[in-house]
Structures are given as C-alpha cells and as structure tokens.
C-alpha cells in the first residue's frame, strides 16, 4: 500500500516526518522522564491509599478512578504521542471510544446496582444457596 501511494508525485513521506536531531531530542527525553516520575509517584500514592488508609468506600473509589484517568491521559498523550498528532486524528481515536464506553459503563453499573437491590444477592447465604443449587 505504501508503494501505491508513493507513486503519486509529492505524496509526503510520513514515515520520516518525526525524524529529528540530537538537539531536539534532549527536551523530549527530559519530558518523558518527568512523565515517568509523575506516574511512579501517582502509583505509589495509590498503593499507599489502597493498602493502608481507611477511607469511605465511595471516596476511595472516586480517588482511584481519577488517578487512573490521569495515568491513562499521560500514557496516551505523551507516551503514545497522540498529543503531537493532528486534531482530526485525536478526534478519530478518542471520540467514538469515549462515547461508547461511557454509555456502556453507565449501563453496566446501573444494571448491577439495580439487580443487587432487586434480587438481594448481596446476602452471602443467598449466594451459597445459588452456588450449591
């Protein structure tokens, strides 16, 4: 396919678009290491929270999901270089996925909570009966 396109005169060589020299590479590397330290700090904080700190179940959940989204942003935007891409590509990658998954997660959680209250399956005895049955 690449050969097919290269037959057109003036088709840009996107494979070589990101090539840069040593002077340009230095700040890039500095940024990458900084992102690494941020992510390591966030992960250690999460582990500390998860293993020792007693918080309300709901508060903890929100804190963890927030930090997860922060880490996911850093991975996609910096490590996968989506931040350096064109705006059209950003939308193509992010928009359909976000729309679909927020909807799916909303449905799954809502239905889960609903069936918990309707069937009363939070009761361990109920589960034991269901398993043994």
């Amino acid at each position, binding site marked *: 396919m690449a050969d097919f396109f290269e037959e057109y005169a003036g088709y840009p060589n996107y494979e070589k678009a990101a090539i840069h020299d040593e002077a*340009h590479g230095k700040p890039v590397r500095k940024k990458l290491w900084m992102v690494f330290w941020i992510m390591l700090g966030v992960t250690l904080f999460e582990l500390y929270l998860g293993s020792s700190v007693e918080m309300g179940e709901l508060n903890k959940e929100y804190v963890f999901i927030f930090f997860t989204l922060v880490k996911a942003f850093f991975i996609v935007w910096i490590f996968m270089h989506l931040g350096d891409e064109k705006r059209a590509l950003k939308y193509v990658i992010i928009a359909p996925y976000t729309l679909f998954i927020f909807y799916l997660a909303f449905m799954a959680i809502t239905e889960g909570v609903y069936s918990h209250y309707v069937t009363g399956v939070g009761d361990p005895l109920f589960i034991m009966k269901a398993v043994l049955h």
Partner: protein
Amino acid sequence: MSNQAATLPPLRKDWDGGVSPLGISYGKMFMWFFLVSDALTFSSLLCAYGFMRHKFTGAWAHPNEVFSHFPFWKGDHPLAYVGFMTFDLIMSSVTMVLAVEAGHRLNRKQVAIWLFLTIIGGFIFVGSQCWEWYHFITGEETLQVYRDYWMNGKHIIEPHFQGANLVVNAYTQLPTFGDFFFCITGFHGFHVFSGVIINIIMFIMVVNGVMDRRGHYEMIEKAGLYWHFVDLVWVFVFTFFYLL
C-alpha cells in the same frame, strides 16, 4: 517540527487529496484503529466485571486480603507484589518510548539497548503473572494458616487453602471472582506476551540493520504503540482488580 515543514508540501488542504488527512502513515493509522477496537474489547470485559461487582456488593473479595503474597517473602504484604509488577510495566513503557525517541534520531545502538531493556521488563512481568496464577491455582499456604476440624472421630489439621481458582475460592463464596480474574488478567497477559514477541522481532530487525536500510524507524513506533497500549490496559486492570 523543523523537518516536517520541509517534507510536507505547502498550500494543500487536508481533504483535497494527495496527502493523508490524518497526517500519519497508513501503517500507524491502522495500528491506532486496531488499538481502539482492542480497547473496546477490554473495556467491555471490565464493564461486565463492574456489573458483577455491583450486583454482588458485600459478598465480593477484598483485594487487600487476596493480593497479599510475595514470592520468597513470607507474611502479609498487601499489594506489594502487584505494586512491583506495575512499576515494572511503567518502567518498560519508559524504555520503549526512549527506544522510539532514539529511532527518531536514527541511532541504531541506542534503539537496540532500550528495546532489549523493554524485552527484559516484559519477561519479568509475564513471569510475575505466571507466579501469581500458579500461586492462586494451587493455593500455597504462604501464610501458614491451618484449619483443624473433627471428622469421623479424628482430629484433622490441614493447611488452609489460600488461593482462588475456578473450583475453590478462599476469599469469597462467589465463583465469579475467579472467573473474571483469570479471564481478564489472562487476556492482558496474553497481550503482554505477544508484545514481547513483537519486541523481540523488532530487536532482531534493528540489530540486523533492516530499519537503517529503510531509512526510518517507524516500525519501532508501531510496536511502541502496542506496548504502551498494554501498559494502558494494565493501569485499568490494576485499579479495578487490585485497588477498588
């Protein structure tokens, strides 16, 4: 970027044809599309997990009690080993992105070194997951907990099963917990394994100078996209299985 301005033709709009509207090469674009579809698969699995988790609120296992073992280190260490695994995967993600950066400078030696370190990190992660699975399935008594009971007039003392597999589960009555754990971490572990294989192929190609003959290191970038995606999935698996 300075070189980009020199290679791209001026005075041409994105959708006029003759250029890529998304500004990337064919291969990289389809790596992104593949990753989006793969992300949808993982998200669906995690949403199903969320459904079950909320349905069985109160009866679900507590991660602090489940993930408290460390190889060659007896005792109760909540989340220590999974913390190590996360650190390993983030570290290998950084070495991968440094390999990509070295590829942008067409520096073959540095690309090979960083890729090699990435492969090592991947093997450590896969090995850790093997240990974790083995530990769960066999239910080794790392905590040295014994249970004693009377049966047919005899006093029986036997090591308490400290694992979780598809048949027995020491932490909760729910078989769903083990099903989801092995399904999702297994699916992710298989992705890590295939990522390591891809990285090994890339390493061999780099060392043999295939990328130098092509004049660019974009294959490293595509392999890097896959590897970072594996790390991204682990971030979510880590949160939803081990922390919440």
